[in-house]
């Protein structure tokens, strides 16, 4: 089921809010998880259950402080017959939720995946200043971004993102290639999504050509930009010791691991006893070189994290935003994970049915390994 939804008062955000209100009142959903402004005007996320409190939700808020999939992993490890939560999330967040479902970290039964187009977001830190006092900021952003308008102030990862539209969803709300002051593009992909649309007045039609073209144009532009960024990275990485240099400022705070939506272990291997050594052992290691860098193991941590995450990384770049010493993790992970996923013809978060690449295999593949 798909079609356009009329927007009232040139306010697409309010139109989406009234959809939420309808679903909450009709008890189709018991709560909605959506972006929201805090009382201090910062970008955050809210779980709204009372239709009267929907003004708290800002579904089109264009700033990202966390990848909400991390929140979903926290609240939806197990399903409950008493809760039906609509996840109103951006494409990278939904893709991470899909990966988490496959990793058995999120139970799908109590959740509805409601996506929204997202051509890019600002960093949550400092977003208050970007927005200023503009109460219509979200709608203005959507108006600007409904065509393709590159914005160099977007988060690094967003500037390289080729998925402005979610890949897996029950229902998606689109505005790219539309005139968001007049209408939104609504698309239900599953029965759960269709059930939400019962009673909603849609002008049923095929996806407008203009929208398809806008999405394609955006993807193509982003792919080109990604290629350019990776080329820059490759140049910066050429030569020995460059990798050490790239991570030289690392404080070993492990923020990148903590905020990563798909880095799912309850206790990180790097926080385990494996790395607890007594002082004599530290001195012994130091003696080999005369002097070793402390904290130690930072490079090993990053390489291992890369190795663990490559197959499921959704390239949301939230790791880079959380880094106190601004190590360029977004481009790094983009490159590494894209290459690894290509190897297995896999795209993280593309489908719930595709098995995770590292838990499956084909007998006749990588035949060169072990023979040379």
């Amino acid at each position, binding site marked *: 089921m798909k079609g356009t939804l009329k927007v009232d008062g040139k306010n697409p955000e309010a139109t989406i809010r009234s959809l939420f209100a309808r679903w909450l009142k009709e008890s189709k959903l018991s709560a909605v998880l959506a972006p929201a402004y805090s009382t201090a005007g910062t970008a955050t996320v809210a779980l709204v259950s009372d239709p009267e409190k929907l003004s708290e939700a800002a579904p089109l808020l264009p700033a990202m402080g966390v990848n909400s999939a991390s929140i979903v992993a926290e609240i939806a490890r197990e399903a409950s017959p008493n809760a039906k939560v609509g996840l109103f999330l951006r494409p990278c967040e939904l893709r991470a939720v899909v990966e988490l479902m496959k990793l058995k970290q999120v139970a799908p039964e109590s959740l509805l995946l409601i996506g929204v187009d997202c051509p890019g977001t600002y960093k949550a830190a400092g977003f208050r200043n970007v927005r200023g006092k503009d109460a219509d900021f979200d709608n203005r952003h959507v108006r600007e971004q409904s065509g393709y308008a590159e914005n160099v102030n977007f988060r690094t990862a967003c500037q390289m993102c080729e998925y402005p539209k979610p890949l897996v969803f029950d229902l998606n709300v689109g505005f790219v290639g539309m005139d968001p002051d007049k209408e939104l593009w609504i698309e239900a992909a599953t029965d759960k999504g269709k059930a939400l649309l019962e009673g909603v007045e849609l002008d049923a039609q095929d996806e407008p050509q203009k929208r398809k073209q806008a999405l394609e144009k955006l993807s193509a532009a982003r792919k080109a930009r990604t290629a350019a960024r990776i080329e820059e990275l490759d140049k910066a990485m050429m*030569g020995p010791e460059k990798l050490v240099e790239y991570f030289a400022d690392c404080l070993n705070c492990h923020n990148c691991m903590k905020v990563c939506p798909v880095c799912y272990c309850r206790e990180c*291997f790097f926080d385990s006893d494996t790395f607890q050594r007594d002082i004599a052992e530290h001195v012994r290691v130091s003696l080999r070189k005369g002097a*070793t*860098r402390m904290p130690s193991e930072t*490079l090993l941590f990053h390489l*291992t994290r890369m190795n663990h995450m*490559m197959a499921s990384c959704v390239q949301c770049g939230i790791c880079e935003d959380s880094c106190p010493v601004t190590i360029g993790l977004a481009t790094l992970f983009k490159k590494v994970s894209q290459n690894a996923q290509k190897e297995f013809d896999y795209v993280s978060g593309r489908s719930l049915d595709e098995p995770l690449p*590292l838990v499956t295999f084909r*007998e006749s593949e990588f035949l060169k*390994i072990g023979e040379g």
Partner: protein
Amino acid sequence: MPEAAATNPAAGVFEPKIVAFLCNWCSYAGADLAGISRIQYPPSIRVIRVPCSGRVDPFFILKALQSGADGVLVSGCHPGDCHYLTGNYVARRRFAVLNDLLEFAGIDPGRVSFSWVSAAEGERFAEVVRDVTEKVRQLGPNRKLLKEEVA
């Protein structure tokens, strides 16, 4: 014998240290067979016995390189012959990803070798060790991943 000359430290030839992860069911038994058959191969490997090549976490490989190994060899049962049926197939995928990562990290993929050696292949095991040792010797000592020095 050419290897005898090569393994002589007095000759000033670089002697690599190679950590070898051998699966209990095939390659470890293959190494054992090479031993009891008195087949000569360079004494460059330090063997760590693992239950299956699927047990080898890529972290082990990185850690070995960081701790000063010049090379790493991982050897398991031939694909299709895994004692646990599919362990080595899964391992193979992991190694494919690791190869990409090594290249990216600027570590010559030649330092990390994979092979499939059955319990009956003592001669093949010796050959694999000879090849791997020669390959790593050509690359010289490993400096890349060693614990970061201060200066």
